[in-house]
């Protein structure tokens, strides 16, 4: 922690960056904080409880302006950063990407290849509850899965915290706000919510970092991150795309291979 604070203070003091995005202690859990002066660097913390995906702030124009930013990125935030770079939403020369390894070492990445190399070797943070629920769902019959999801999604009240928490949901106008024609029913009800969540997940195809921030943000605790997780699964299984890579132009749905396989088209 001390090392991270020192690093942040240095970066700010030398003027290399104008702001550090990191975590500070919150009411119950660590929360995002934004540090613009070296004196405040002592607030910074980083540990296993820091699971929120800070990459979401990198596309907040009001916050970032034209500033150069340092970010203490968690494992999944690193993936999101790669993706945001691929989608040309952020620029690497405006960014200092830091992480703290499992060995408590502060790492500063110079290139996207370095990030990829780190992601490929560092342990993926385990989410045991999710794994258990996915297994349970996969063991169900389709009818039981429908029961589960329609009951869960019926509760969604469309606060869009899941969208707001996701680094990839940076569109200034979301599909749910499109009303000519009205694609997705904008009110909250079971079907309207199912439509929203199918769209949210579909729009994550090849983009989702599988960070779980959407589900963690939901005030009702709906496990909607499992839907985007399923998409990650489908993309990996069917198109052999790697979430840890930033290959320019390799977008799951705007590219194709003539030899793509499926087993359901007659």
């Amino acid at each position: 922690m001390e090392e991270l604070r020192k690093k942040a203070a240095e970066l700010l003091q030398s003027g290399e960056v104008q702001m550090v995005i990191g975590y500070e202690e919150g009411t119950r859990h660590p929360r995002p904080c934004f540090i613009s002066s070296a004196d405040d660097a002592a607030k910074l913390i980083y540990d296993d409880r820091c699971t929120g995906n800070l990459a979401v702030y990198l596309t907040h124009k009001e916050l970032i302006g034209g500033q150069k930013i340092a970010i203490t990125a968690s494992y999944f935030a690193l993936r999101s950063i790669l993706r945001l770079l691929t989608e040309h939403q952020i620029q690497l020369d405006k960014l200092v990407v830091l992480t703290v390894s499992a060995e408590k070492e502060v790492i500063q990445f110079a290139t996207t290849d370095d990030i990829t190399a780190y992601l490929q070797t560092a342990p993926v943070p385990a989410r045991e509850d999710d794994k258990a629920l996915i297994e349970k769902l996969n063991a169900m019959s389709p009818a039981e899965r429908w029961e589960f999801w329609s009951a869960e999604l019926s509760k969604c009240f469309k606060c869009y915290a899941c969208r707001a928490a996701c680094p990839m949901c940076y569109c200034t106008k979301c599909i749910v706000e499109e009303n000519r024609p009205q694609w997705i029913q904008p009110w909250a009800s079971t079907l309207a919510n199912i439509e929203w969540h199918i769209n949210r997940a579909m729009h994550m195809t090849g983009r989702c970092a599988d960070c779980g921030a959407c589900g963690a943000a939901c005030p009702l605790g709906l496990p909607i991150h499992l839907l985007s997780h399923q998409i990650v699964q489908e993309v990996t299984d069917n198109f052999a795309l790697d979430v840890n890579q930033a290959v320019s132009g390799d977008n799951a749905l705007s590219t194709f291979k003539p030899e793509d396989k499926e087993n359901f088209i007659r």
Partner: protein
Amino acid sequence: MSEFEPKIVAFVCNWCTYAGADLTGTSRIKYASNVKIVRFPCTGRIDFMLLLKAFAEGADGIIVSGCHPNDCHYTSGNFHARRRWVIFRGLLNFMGIDVNRIQFSWVSAAEGAKWADVVNSTVTAVRELGPYTQYRKAADYLAQQDQSIIDGQEAMIIK
């Protein structure tokens, strides 16, 4: 009781399947009349939301059909569509939405007989599955509200 006649909506591309379906007619091949055809320029244009809308508005089954790979009028629309369907179908299945009610196919302008076969077999399959009321039920926010003025939770509590 009369046998259930499923409503099927077919989303087809203009250049292959629509022409193929036309050929089915001009060749005087008889096929089930349950299907309503909606014509699109290309399978690449068939947004997955259209399929969901069809279910919500009363379809019991859906056919999505276009040009065979490499035959797309716009070169690659069907390749893009194929990727989208792979993901969409996987997601629907994970959510328990009945993917057996959606038949995807490639039907060229010369395959009048195949079109008849695709329609007939889909109608038979969906007839066995019965009306897709579960999905439509989810659309009825009024019914939900009458039961629950707070939120959807009664579905969990009252069994």
